[in-house]
């Protein structure tokens, strides 16, 4: 397999605005990544479109609407969709394109306008089958409230722990110019915010964001053609869980809905591929997909950043703060911007910016290697990417 390098990163400012159409956002992300890589669309051999449920943007088979906006006419183009994990899956597909030798330079691009319908949770309720579970109704908030309840029961998490995660991430988000939410909260603010789905409150939750993002991946031998210090995709992992949340409970469960062994599987596959022996020492920045505060805590322990019985203590001690010894979501993470189709791609982009030393105000000193993760479906599809500064 060939080495895969990240040659360019483009993000638009994430917001609640719907002042640009979906193709306009894709066009903006494409222009930004080409400018960042100091190249033209002619250098792009293939395009991977990062696009989650069509109903969010309101056009079925929406990738056909943006062929021109991302310069894909006359080029190979495919769409990738694994729900919330879409962005990290799309990066992985682009990486396979390059690693295989099929294409030299590949652009992965997408956008979302989650605020446009105002019915995002009704749309996301439709990811359940109409037979048994849609009527209750499940959606991405209730499914992760179930996770929170089981995590509380199993590990002793409290609403205060959830609030502490939110406070940390929102503080980081204020340093990220692309973040949708740039506002600091106190623990009291979070605890006093509107209850959405017990125990998840408004400020434990991600916003409904619009915005676009893109990355250009290229074969390792091409890095000299691009302007930035190279960041390499060193490890990739993916794994899925059963469709049935109710199977992740009770004495005969194999997997507990409190945890995600598939995330562990994905992360450790990525560590192994990257040749990492001691991930806690060798990885200095962690961009972990977490649309609700409780999800960050299970992600932390499921990627092996600490032992499960240490997570809450380390949170209290500030270990996951931007200046802690295990910094998690220095960008502010998904709690500060969730343009669903590209959210997990942004985790990889932020990991790469840390490795390249280009993260600006939220840069962590001396990052050589970073981990990005994504989660999609009913806590079901998990992806992990290790980005490093060397081969």
């Amino acid at each position, binding site marked *: 397999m060939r080495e895969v390098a990240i040659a360019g990163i483009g993000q638009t400012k994430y917001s609640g605005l*719907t*002042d640009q159409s979906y193709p306009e956002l894709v066009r903006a992300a494409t222009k930004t990544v080409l400018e960042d890589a100091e190249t033209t669309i002619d250098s792009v051999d293939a395009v991977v479109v990062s696009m989650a449920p069509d*109903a969010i943007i*309101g056009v079925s088979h929406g990738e056909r609407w943006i062929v021109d906006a991302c310069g894909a006419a006359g080029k190979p183009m495919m769409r990738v969709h694994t729900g919330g994990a879409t962005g990290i899956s799309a990066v992985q597909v682009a990486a396979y394109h390059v690693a295989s030798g099929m294409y030299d330079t590949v652009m992965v691009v997408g956008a979302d306008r989650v605020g446009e319908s*105002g*019915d995002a*949770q*009704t749309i996301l*309720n439709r990811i359940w089958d*109409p*037979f*048994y*579970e849609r*009527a*209750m*109704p*499940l*959606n991405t*908030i*209730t499914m992760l*409230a*179930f996770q929170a*309840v*089981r995590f509380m*029961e199993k590990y002793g998490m409290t609403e205060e722990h959830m609030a502490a995660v939110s406070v940390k991430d929102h503080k980081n988000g204020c340093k990220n110019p692309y973040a949708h939410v740039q506002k600091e909260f106190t623990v009291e603010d979070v605890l006093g915010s*509107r*209850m*959405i*789905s*017990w*125990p*998840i409150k408004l400020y434990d939750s991600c916003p409904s964001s619009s915005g676009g993002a893109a990355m250009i991946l290229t074969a390792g031998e091409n890095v000299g053609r691009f302007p930035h210090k190279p960041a390499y995709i060193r490890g990739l992992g993916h794994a899925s869980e*059963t*469709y*049935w*949340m*109710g*199977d992740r*409970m*009770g*004495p*005969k469960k*194999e997997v507990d*809905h409190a945890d995600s062994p598939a995330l562990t599987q994905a992360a450790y596959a990525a560590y192994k591929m990257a040749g990492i022996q001691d991930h806690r020492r060798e990885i200095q920045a962690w961009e972990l997909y977490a649309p609700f505060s409780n999800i960050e805590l299970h992600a932390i322990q499921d990627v092996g950043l600490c032992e499960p019985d240490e997570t809450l203590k380390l949170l209290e001690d500030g270990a996951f703060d931007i200046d802690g010894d295990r910094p998690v979501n220095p960008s502010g993470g998904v709690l500060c911007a969730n343009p669903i189709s590209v959210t997990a791609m942004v985790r990889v982009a932020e990991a790469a910016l840390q490795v390249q030393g280009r993260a600006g105000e939220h840069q962590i000193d001396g990052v050589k290697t970073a981990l990005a993760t994504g989660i999609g479906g009913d806590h079901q599809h998990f992806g992990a990417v290790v980005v490093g500064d060397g081969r």
Partner: protein
Amino acid sequence: MKQESLTTLQEHWDITYNHALGETGSHFYNALRDEGKILGRRCPACERVLLPPRPFCDRDFVDTTDWVEVGTEGRVEAFTVVFQSFRGLPEAPYCIAYVLLDGADTAVLNYVRGIDWTPGNVPQNIGVGTRVKVAFAEEREGRMTDFWFEKA
């Protein structure tokens, strides 16, 4: 020059489906509607009773073989109480829970009714481990909403 205002265009999707339930789903709903029974499917390999019923066991990747009537009481495995109404979804507040019914090996989702909810009274009124019983609608139409849970 005056800034031109940006405009939007309102669209609405209204799509009808007639979803095929298949043999397993059809039998489950017929028994629920006509006999007021909740039926699971047993896997011949791991012997788990799967509810909702499925024609095959994902773990062993073999076809399930027997119908098993499960009990009408069970244990809450996970719950949430929703306080935010969303357009197109039910009016809040309401409680939904995954319950491991006696005799089943997987938890089934439904409403927990009969409690007046406020954000402050949630943990006093329900928890992982709370015992609940099934209540059936008098007029059943072959839907999951033909039954719900109440505190036992």
